[in-house]
């Protein structure tokens, strides 16, 4: 029982960052109908930003996370303008190919610049974990958890309470009508991709120091983000949040009770199972398959 609760605690911490990753991807798909294969690379990009700023440049750790988020936002906007804007009327498979190209370039670019050896990031947090009764949580993990929750909150606020968010939701509902009502679709798309990318970068910036930073981390992150989003239903933000926690939970339980080698398989098994049983995801209101 205690072991199980420890897994739950771990899953909550991991799930908070997964949710960030998933929200970013689902925003992009829901509003732009783009399956963003480069999402995991933006996650890795965030982690490398933290490594660059806090380790190589020796600046403040918290500052480096902020840099990662902003840089992710900028890089996202850039990708949108250069690669996606000219593809606006292409079908979903074509943009998918473009994003796969971007993924390959980014992943191998990271490998070229930073080398294949994984980097670790030191943080200002003490090594010794918090111990509450039989449970232990490292202070870094706690920080990651609360920072991720804060960012999820910010994303919710942005989407539900701001003018930009309102325009984004309108575009999600019906792009043509939104455009008729005077919403600048070009700007909304750029903002969407930038926000989605910065959320991915934030997830990488937070998780990078927990594990290690390596060029291949984006690979698996992309696929996990897909799992989260499919679990919650493509385009559903609440679904992505819950989906993130569910995937983390499944991974923790899978790794703890089945075999740690199959930890990463949980996501894919979930994808396959969900799509075969309920293709629209567990939490989506009747969303069309696109």
């Amino acid at each position, binding site marked *: 029982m205690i072991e199980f609760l420890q897994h739950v605690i771990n899953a909550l911490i991991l799930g908070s960052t997964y949710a960030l990753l998933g929200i970013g991807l689902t925003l992009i798909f829901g509003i732009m109908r783009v399956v963003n294969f480069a999402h995991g690379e933006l996650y890795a990009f965030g982690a490398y930003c933290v490594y660059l700023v806090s380790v190589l440049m020796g600046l403040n750790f918290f500052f480096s996370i902020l840099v990662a988020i902003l840089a992710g936002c900028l890089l996202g906007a850039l990708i949108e303008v250069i690669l996606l804007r000219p593809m606006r009327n292409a079908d979903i498979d*074509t943009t998918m*190919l473009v994003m796969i190209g971007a993924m390959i370039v980014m992943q191998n670019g990271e*490998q070229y610049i930073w080398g294949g050896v994984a980097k670790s990031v030191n943080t200002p947090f003490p090594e010794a974990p918090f111990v509450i009764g039989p449970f232990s949580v490292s202070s870094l993990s706690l920080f990651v958890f609360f920072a991720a929750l804060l960012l999820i909150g910010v994303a919710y606020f942005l989407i539900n309470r701001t003018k930009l968010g309102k325009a984004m939701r309108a575009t999600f509902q019906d792009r043509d009508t939104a455009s008729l009502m005077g919403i600048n679709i070009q700007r909304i798309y750029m903002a969407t991709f930038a926000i989605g990318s910065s959320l991915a970068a934030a997830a990488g910036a937070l998780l990078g120091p927990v594990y290690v930073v390596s060029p291949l981390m984006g690979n698996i992150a992309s696929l996990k983000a897909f799992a989260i989003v499919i679990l919650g239903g493509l385009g559903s933000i609440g679904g992505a949040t819950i989906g993130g926690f569910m995937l983390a939970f499944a991974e923790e339980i899978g790794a703890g009770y089945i075999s740690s080698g199959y930890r990463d398989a949980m996501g894919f098994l979930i994808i*396959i199972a969900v799509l075969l049983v309920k293709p629209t995801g567990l939490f989506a209101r009747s969303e069309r398959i696109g």
Partner: protein
Amino acid sequence: MTRLFPWVALAVFASIPLWLHDPYLLNAFITTGIFIIAAMSLNLLLGYTGQLSLGHVAFFGIGAYTSALTSLGFDVELIGGLRVVHEPWPVWTGLVLGTLVAGLCGYIVGKLSFRVRGAYFVIVTISFAEVVRLVALNWVELTQGPLALTSIPPMTLGLPGLGYFDFYSKQSYFYLVLAIVVISYVIIRRLVYSRVGRAMVALKENESLAVSVGIDVTRYLVLAAVVSAGIAGAAGSLYAHYLKIIDPDVFLFLYTITMVIMVITGGKGTLAGPIVGGLIFGFIPVVARSFAAPEVQWILYGLFMILIVFVLPQGIVPAVENLFTARSKAEFPASPKAKIQDAP
């Protein structure tokens, strides 16, 4: 003219071992040929049925592992203490079994995943490949995991009493690969120029209209998946017995991407496309390796992929055909002049 072209190309390729003795280049031709087979099989799904399957490497890897294990033998304990022992079989049975097992997996995956379309289909196929990769990595008793299956015997053909032939030299393996390329080409060509191929093109173009004239969509999608997976499995088997070592990295997403790049560069939905694209991307590493690290090569691949989609979305073969105007349209299976009798 256009009808002669495949024969001319075949003659040129068949002559290569006669004048090319550089083992490095011959090696490049062999591995390129293997990837061309895989790309041709992917093209059947991607180009003719219009389904972007991004888990194709799974069938390649399943073919490789099945074939290697058939010829090496194994001894594993399944859940419940059930012990399965397999003594090594002749190597050619590995090629056959690799093809069949991959085809069977294609059937299962097709049956399940064609219930969804578009982005969902893509993600299911990727997930399938990743699950298979993780199994290959973790089922150490069967696959040796990351330690790789080693000492895989070379391909042998023959029957008891009739004698055997070892494909040990690069020259002989080149001809073996070429033969499988030709067989795969003929199978795919006959399919796409037939009623089956028309059904596939129909459901790629307009699924509702296709079913309204009585075409059973799922049936033809699954058929395409089975044939495609089987051919990819044969390619995987050739790969395993050529390299004589196979590890879970054969399932990497990057290999699927390599096949996809070959198909879209050459021209999806054309017979010659995967061959042209395969030759280009098979030999880029040969040219680039002197001055570029592997990751730089990959960066070039990625940029090339984006460039092709932007500049030449139909691929090279259709673009060249358009240069020769509508006269040589016969390469398109959809063309009315398509004749089945000129299949080689």
